[in-house]
């Protein structure tokens, strides 16, 4: 009969309408309340009716692999020897694989010898040009650049705010571990340590030079810190692996840091770096 198709369609619309209320009753309107469980119901595979997320009051959590503008990893502040040090060795691979060529790196040079050192002097990413492809993170051999989850980067002036420098890009290793626990864990297994690849090497080298120096009478090497670092750096994958889940479970603290704290961290890192440079010079 003419009109039955139409009527069936309208019934379907009606069903959707009714079902959303049935669903509300089933969960006692719980699914609208803010909590992880309730949100799981609303966004789950069984839900009927409204699944809308009220952005920006509510935000969908992004999965681990989610990629937005990259950031650079620096060593955690509480690291005994390398606190605040860049993981990046300025090898330049990320700048080469970057499709729109929005990474600029100034390779660090030793002020005395003039030879390149494995640390970038400056690092810029033009986030207007970055296409969030994730290649830099994928091909970095030192796990030093990672894709961030922070997608709210709006600013008032694109000409002055959208080229991120090293300061702006740097975030501690612990941040990466908090936004991508399983990936950070897998990478740790490959590297063999929670720290930068070089940490173990450095610790060994530091230990041997400390030994060399302590054979001389006027040794004033900071041997204490080196020996403290060595066990941590040389921890076997197994032992770190055992430690990893528990530490992750103990501190599921979401990354949160206000601007002041961030500034403080930056300042401290810079000071440390200056001290280190002074010592070396």
């Amino acid at each position, binding site marked *: 009969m003419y009109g039955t198709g139409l009527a069936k369609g309208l019934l379907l619309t009606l069903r959707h309408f009714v079902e959303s209320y049935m669903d509300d009753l089933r969960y006692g309107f719980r699914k609208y309340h*803010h909590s992880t469980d309730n949100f799981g119901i609303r966004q789950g595979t069984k839900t009927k009716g409204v699944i809308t997320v009220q952005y920006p009051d509510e935000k969908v959590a992004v999965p681990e692999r989610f990629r937005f503008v990259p950031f650079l990893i620096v060593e955690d502040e509480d690291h005994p020897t390398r606190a605040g040090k860049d993981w990046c060795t300025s090898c330049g691979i990320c700048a080469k694989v970057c499709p729109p060529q929005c990474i600029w790196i100034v390779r660090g040079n030793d002020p005395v010898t003039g030879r390149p050192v494995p640390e970038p002097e400056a690092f810029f990413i033009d986030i207007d040009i970055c296409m969030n492809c994730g290649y830099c993170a994928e091909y970095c051999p030192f796990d030093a650049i990672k894709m961030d989850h922070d997608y709210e980067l709006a600013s008032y002036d694109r000409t002055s705010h959208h080229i991120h420098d090293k300061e702006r890009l740097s975030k501690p290793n612990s941040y990466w571990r908090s936004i991508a626990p399983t990936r950070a864990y897998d990478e740790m297994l490959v590297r063999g340590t929670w720290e930068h690849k070089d940490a173990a090497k450095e610790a060994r080298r530091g230990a041997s030079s400390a030994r060399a120096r302590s054979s001389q009478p006027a040794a004033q090497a900071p041997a204490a810190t080196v020996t403290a670092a060595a066990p941590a750096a040389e921890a076997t994958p197994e032992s770190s692996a055992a430690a990893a889940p528990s530490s992750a479970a103990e501190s599921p603290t979401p990354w949160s840091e206000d601007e002041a704290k961030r500034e403080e961290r930056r300042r401290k890192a810079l000071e440390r770096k200056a001290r280190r440079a002074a010592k070396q010079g």
Partner: protein
Amino acid sequence: MENLAAAPEQPIETASIDDAVSFLKSNHPDAIKLDDRDGYEGVIVDPDQLLDVARVIRDELGFDYLSSATAVDYLGEGDHMEMVYHAYRTSGGGALVFKAQTDRENPTIPSLTGLWRGADFQEREAWDLYGIRFPGHPNLKRILMWEGFHGHPMRKDWREAYYEEELKPFDSRWPGGHVHRSEEKNVFGKNVSYPTDIDLNRLMDSSETAVYESLGLGVDVERIMDKDGFETNELVVNMGPHHPSTHGVFRMLLTVDGETVTSLEPVMGYLHRNHEKIGERNTYLHNIPFTDRLDYISSMGNNHGYVLAVEQLMSLGRKYNPPTYRCEALRVMMVELSRIVNHLWAIGFWLNDIGAFFTPVLYFIQERERILDFFEAVAGSRMMCNYMRFGGLFGDLPERIKSVANLTNDRVRDYNTMQFLTEMINERIPRTIDELELLLTQNEIVLERSVDVGVLSAEDAINYSAAGPLLRGSGVAYDIRRADPYSIYPELDFDVAVEEEGDMYARYRVRVTELRESVRILRQILPRLEATKDESIWADGKPGAYQPRVPHGEAYGRVENGKGELGYYLVSAGGRGGSSNPWRYHVRAPSFINLTPLGRMSQGYKVADIVGILGSIDIVLGETDR
């Protein structure tokens, strides 16, 4: 020829490609030369006899479908221009590749539009971007650039506004790293040179007249008597470029007699960014995320076509491992999920176009959201997936689809991946398709708006190089997954959707059937994924190099994407070791070529139908304009 003599019962229109080539060679001995360049295929035809040879290829050899026609500039590699044609049989099988060469100074090649109307837009593109003239073309005007544009941008010696270096990676990025913003170095307005005979203040006028003229009229209106003897005026109407029904910045120039459309000319290029030029500056790897931005509704499919083309080239080299089975299964799964996304989107927005504003499309989008959630968890992004790599993938499936809480997000989800997939494929998607059919298939309004509207006959569909649901809706059962199979499709069990009528409703039906067939494929993929759990996604067990050297040669990789045949024509030039940047990177975009028959399909229908007809073709401007 010996083969043919030995097997006389084998008619020449079904003979193998090799036999076809030798048939051509015996027919036109002085016009045909085998293309013996390293890694190249097909024949080189003398341009003077191109039309004859093409006619034989189409009529006697049965290659009735001209898939792609594109130009290559061999500056410094022989210093000639070349048109490359890929012709296929709609009965299935591989391509007969034929080429015509001409000099760079005054490049001229006869137009094939008389044989294949599908060459129309593609030749216009070659004129626009390469400056090749096609005598015999009915309407040889620029198509992507504007009429007053200076130069032909795809030529190797043409340099774009923010030109920095011939090839990426650029030297200035590392280790010197002097950051700058291109706009500061190259201020807008100072980076272009206009031809001297262009009056910038009257730019619109001079470039637009040609468009109006192509419709067979000047800007003046004509006086027409209708059948009752009333005097009516034929009116020119511009729909777009900013019009909600054109799915982006796209313009249709109609002449209407009352409500009836008498002719239609698509005008495009508003979103043109010279994707191919960018692609030729890029390295092979750089291009994968750029392909995401073509048909941004189904980026997985775009990735697939491109990696297939590059893998074809790489297989010419000595060291090449084909992708593992798990990798192929994952690719097919992703591509079929994107097909579902694409068709849900296409049907939904087509309904918007014919007036069912947003209720149906929102039902479909709910399902699309799940699929995008899945893409996001696996590939890292909902739409710009950038998931496939040469010989592998970005990553295997994660154990769990899990989100993490952090500063900006406080709503967490956590599912087992395989369980999520199983639920989605076995329950959610079929349920959505059922609802879709309940809502639409027998709906009287849909039927009245779409049956017998926008009819395209099978002969026309083939001749206009239509592809995808547009072709199959006209009764041509041509699906590349079956006709020229790739990946693991040969072992999968599914049917090619086809409808005879050639109207909007037939295209809708084809899409619905394809949705169901995709689900059928996905159901077969699930056990394959379970079975290959422990297999690596990388042929060599480890990720590929970031700057692969690709051997010398050419390749045409094509896939059946949601919108139709998506092809990538690649040329790798450079020394014996191959090169890391493509010499030629061409995209055969289904959305672009499917617009060729739009004018034909629209004639005689009402203005309100035009919107639906365009919607039923299913275009996306990211791909049309490239």
